[in-house]
């Protein structure tokens, strides 16, 4: 069942992995020219992104150093967001999409426990995202090495692991909503809404007292806070993400086991 799940995910995964890799190669590569003329670029950036918008981009501090550049341009928003949407697309293929297409009916009449089915689908999601993360990590590391960016292997690995955990969390959100209601639209809405609002809360919202506390329910907080590129593995934060994912998985298993399929 896991093998088949991976097959079903394959096209979406390969597409996203290639896309994200290309993005990474390009953006990391651009750093070479930024390093050549740091003043021009940092001023241009400050001019281009004033005030709140700069907050939204994560501050854009010091992006002329290798670490700073990776943090603010690559790992701040674009790559994790792309990974989140990759996870959403893949997770929607677990239950919601086959249920809408009507193919899930025959699957649940196989001699396989419903709980097992959800777990296998989740395992496929983990393995698929892991593969995509591994490929994109190697691309990033490769390009960073080539242009001598000076970012240590384990720091980069820590940052990339954060991306994986964040994507897995949102993927599991989609899986859980799909398992509960069997439709893609609500799953996409929940993930899209939570991901975007969560990001805004930890960036712009940081300075707004009224909503600052909301960061605790934003997965982005646990992803961004630890600054793994400059300080190494933020174990505590990552553990929170992993634990939240486990809880979501449990709700997915329980809700799918209880309900009618295809109604």
């Amino acid at each position: 069942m896991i093998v088949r799940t991976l097959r079903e995910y394959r096209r979406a995964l390969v597409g996203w992995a290639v896309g994200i890799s290309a993005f990474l190669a390009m953006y990391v590569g651009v750093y070479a020219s930024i390093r050549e003329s740091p003043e021009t670029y940092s001023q241009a950036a400050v001019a281009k992104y004033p005030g709140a918008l700069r907050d939204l981009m994560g501050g854009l501090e010091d992006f002329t150093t290798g670490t700073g550049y990776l943090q603010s341009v690559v790992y701040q928003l674009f790559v994790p967001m792309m990974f989140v949407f990759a996870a959403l697309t893949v997770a929607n293929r677990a239950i919601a999409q086959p249920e809408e297409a009507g193919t899930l009916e025959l699957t649940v009449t196989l001699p396989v426990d419903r709980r097992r089915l959800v777990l296998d689908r989740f395992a496929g999601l983990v393995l698929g995202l892991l593969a995509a993360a591994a490929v994109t990590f190697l691309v990033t590391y490769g390009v960073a090495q080539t242009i001598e960016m000076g970012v240590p292997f384990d720091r980069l690995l820590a940052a990339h692991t954060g991306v994986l955990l964040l994507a897995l969390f949102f993927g599991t959100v989609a899986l859980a909503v799909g398992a509960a209601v069997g439709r893609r639209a609500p799953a996409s809405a929940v993930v899209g809404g939570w991901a975007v609002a969560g990001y805004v809360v930890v960036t712009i919202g940081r300075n707004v007292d009224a909503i600052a506390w909301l960061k605790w329910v934003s997965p982005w907080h646990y992803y961004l806070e630890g600054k793994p590129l400059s300080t190494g593995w933020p174990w505590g934060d990552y553990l929170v993400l992993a634990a939240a994912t486990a809880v979501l998985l449990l709700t997915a298993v329980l809700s799918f086991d209880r309900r009618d399929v295809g109604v």
Partner: protein
Amino acid sequence: MSAMTAVVQAEGLTKYYGRRRGLEDLTLEIQPGEVFGYLGPNGAGKTTTIRLLLDVIRPTRGLVRVLGEDTRTPAVRNRIGYLPGELALEGREKAREYLEFLAKVRGGVPAARIDGLAERLDADLGVPMRKLSKGNKQKIGLIQAFMHEPEFLILDEPTSGLDPLVQQEFLAMVREVRASGRTVLMSSHVLAEVEHVSDRVGIVRGGRLVAVENVAALREKAVRRVELHFDAPVPREAFEGLPGVRDLRIEGASLRCTIDGRPDALVKAAAKFTVVHMVSAEPDLEEIFLTYYSEAS
């Protein structure tokens, strides 16, 4: 498990979709070795019943056991072959690969059996599934239902989309299943599709099982149309009031009527004249069936 454990045991089985009624208070037993035809018009509750038997949906009330087991037990589904009423086969995957996957999950099926079934039904397994026509998808559905030689076949509108030749082949497959002592539940809108292979038929309407009939008994009750042609005009009085004769119409030298039960009285009355030609249609079970339909409404 004793040999006499009913294959299907439903008691007060009820399913509501929210406030919509799907099935109300179904009590039914299907015995091993039986072919049960499950008949009813659109929206009657056939698919609802079948999905309940397979644990795709859960009952609102009532009890249901299949092959002596709780329907929630995953292992019991390995002893069932299921053809969904709304079969969906999609994707780039070839039919053969999908069948191999299903076979593997069900504990393995010899490749030769899949090929044999494909040949009988004239199914092409090398085509991506989304490119198959409706009837050809149905064939794939039938192959996967039959291939692991399950004890109990549940077929929701199995003949829909099949051409007459393939329908005949399918009915032959059902007869073989019955001959080997296994059990079949198949749904349909029309009795004609199932009457030649079914031992019993159940008629469901508006979510309620309104009749369960033995097909042989149904045939006995069946109305027969008879036409007699004589060498000269016959008097109406000679045939009026004969037991079992209804809808009598005499036009010159020909007589038309329907017969309820035995044709004996009519034959004896006709013997007084010279009969040149006689036509007696197959008992029309459909007609009885339709009277159930109209009675219940």
